[in-house]
């Protein structure tokens, strides 16, 4: 038996089920689910993992740092993390000399050798199942219907589930929920305004530190489809029934019981009789569930995504000839924006 990973995710999202039980032999259940509530957090770190408050370039004239974006059940939306740079101004005893500067164009963004990494990626999905079964033999007789009577539950909403993709990146790089890429880098041609000395261009040069964009999800959906089926297949026989859905938590038992009862009623089973048989333990819901073969509808959407994405940019400085010696200081502004 395989347990769906992070099934508790379902408990974190308030889901309202509106049961629209019809009278056909196949029942339809409409789901009105709230949008996933999640967070996207971006952070700047030193290469050692500490908080990044300021940058010192040192003798090498460049310094790497870490830009990270961490999604927790966030809706699948692209993002950009960009940087702008002011001129550097000479500072003495905490006072800026705005007449002496190193232009921002002498500074630039590059990337370290392995510029991007991704970890702990998971896709949050809402599986939908079609369930179909047939009453035969003694059970059909007990329930007062002819042997061979079919009953079905269509479009049954499974529990929201989050499947981790850890260790499965091979072949899925192009199918990540967010494909992450570093920016092309380059110099800060137009400076941003400096808080003391001003002199900004108004529209400063923005250099991309990270770019998370959508990608082709077909391979990911196929992988998730297989993962959901595998997780629900308690018996390991490559087939799933409603009892396995309940046993693995892939289906909410009370909701499935209501849908199954409605399907049986549509097939001609008296619910009064059914309740009496269940009360007498002559028939069990599990027994009925085991008759319902479950077919997973193709996964076509991600409800949300989880994952951490890292980029390793570096700030570089080229000091113009003739620059008077001294301490120069400027402001690096890093902006994160969702790009829906």
């Amino acid at each position, binding site marked *: 038996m395989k347990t769906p990973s992070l099934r508790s995710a379902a408990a974190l999202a308030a889901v309202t089920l509106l049961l629209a039980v019809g009278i056909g032999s196949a029942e339809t259940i409409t789901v009105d689910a709230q949008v996933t509530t999640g967070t996207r957090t971006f952070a700047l770190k030193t290469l050692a993992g500490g908080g990044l408050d300021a940058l010192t370039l040192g003798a090498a004239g460049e310094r790497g740092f870490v830009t990270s974006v961490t999604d927790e059940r966030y809706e699948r939306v692209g993002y950009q993390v960009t940087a702008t740079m002011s001129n550097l101004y000479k500072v003495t005893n905490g006072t800026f000399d705005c007449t002496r500067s190193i232009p921002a164009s002498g500074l630039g963004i590059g990337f370290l050798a392995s510029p991007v990494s991704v970890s702990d990626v998971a896709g949050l999905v809402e599986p939908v199942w079609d369930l179909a079964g047939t009453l035969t033999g003694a059970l059909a007789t007990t329930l007062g219907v002819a042997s061979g009577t079919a009953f079905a539950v269509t479009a049954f909403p499974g529990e929201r589930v989050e499947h981790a993709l850890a260790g499965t990146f091979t072949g899925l790089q192009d199918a990540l929920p967010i494909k992450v890429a570093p920016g092309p880098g380059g110099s800060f041609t137009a400076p*941003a305004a400096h808080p003391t000395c001003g002199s900004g261009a108004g529209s400063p040069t*923005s250099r991309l530190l990270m770019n998370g964009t959508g990608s082709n999800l077909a391979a990911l959906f196929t992988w998730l489809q297989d993962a959901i089926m595998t997780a629900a297949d308690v018996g390991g026989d490559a087939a799933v029934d409603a009892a396995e859905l309940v046993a693995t938590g892939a289906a909410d038992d009370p909701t499935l019981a209501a849908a199954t009862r409605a399907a049986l009623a549509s097939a001609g089973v008296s619910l009064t009789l059914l309740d009496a048989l269940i009360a007498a333990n002559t028939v069990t819901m599990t027994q009925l569930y085991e008759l319902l073969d479950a077919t997973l509808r193709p996964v076509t959407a991600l409800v949300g995504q989880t994952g951490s994405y890292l980029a390793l940019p570096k700030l570089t400085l080229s000091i113009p000839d003739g620059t008077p010696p001294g301490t120069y200081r400027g402001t690096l502004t*890093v902006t994160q924006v969702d790009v829906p």
Partner: protein
Amino acid sequence: MSRRSAGRARTTFVTACISLVVLASGTANAGQNETFGAEPFPSVIAGEARRAFAVPERVAPGIDIEESVRVYNRTDEPIRLAIYPTTARLGDDEVIEIGDRGATSPLVERITLARQSVVLQPHADATIAMRVTMAGGIAPGSLAAIVVQGAPSAGSAEFDLVQRIAILVRASGNAAGRTERSAGGVPGWLDVAIGVALLASYRWRRHVAATAGPV
């Protein structure tokens, strides 16, 4: 919009300016860094999460768009945040270039925020009213950003660091009376309200979104 309606809208906005709402902190659908977060408010309308503001290019005369930005403090210390509209444009390599504070454009000039800065107590949040003046319509494809900016780091090195979270403001171009997504996927929820009646206040719009849903 009648003069009385316009007056009511104006009154509503003034009220919103004065009554900065401080609520318990929450993080639904929020973009954040380690210190603060920002999101359109409400963050979900008619079941659709919002990651940007979608503004129609044209509305009936006399109508302005009222919106809100929620900001919150994730730390155990009080923080001061600057909040301002600025330019946004699609630059080379499809980089969205977010301007400095004070950068302006025709769309930016139409955006007014009730506050330019806010001090948040530990783990508190605040909702800042925003108005987009719509007279004459907005040029198709216009783009701007609402920026929430933390204080500069107090480092002693050559570079101070400033972190910003930006929320895009897009002219959606949706036709009034329909609910549809813009090309980028932002729900054109404002059109829902416009299709029903005049925009008067956020509270009214939320009511529409909650009861009428997509038109």
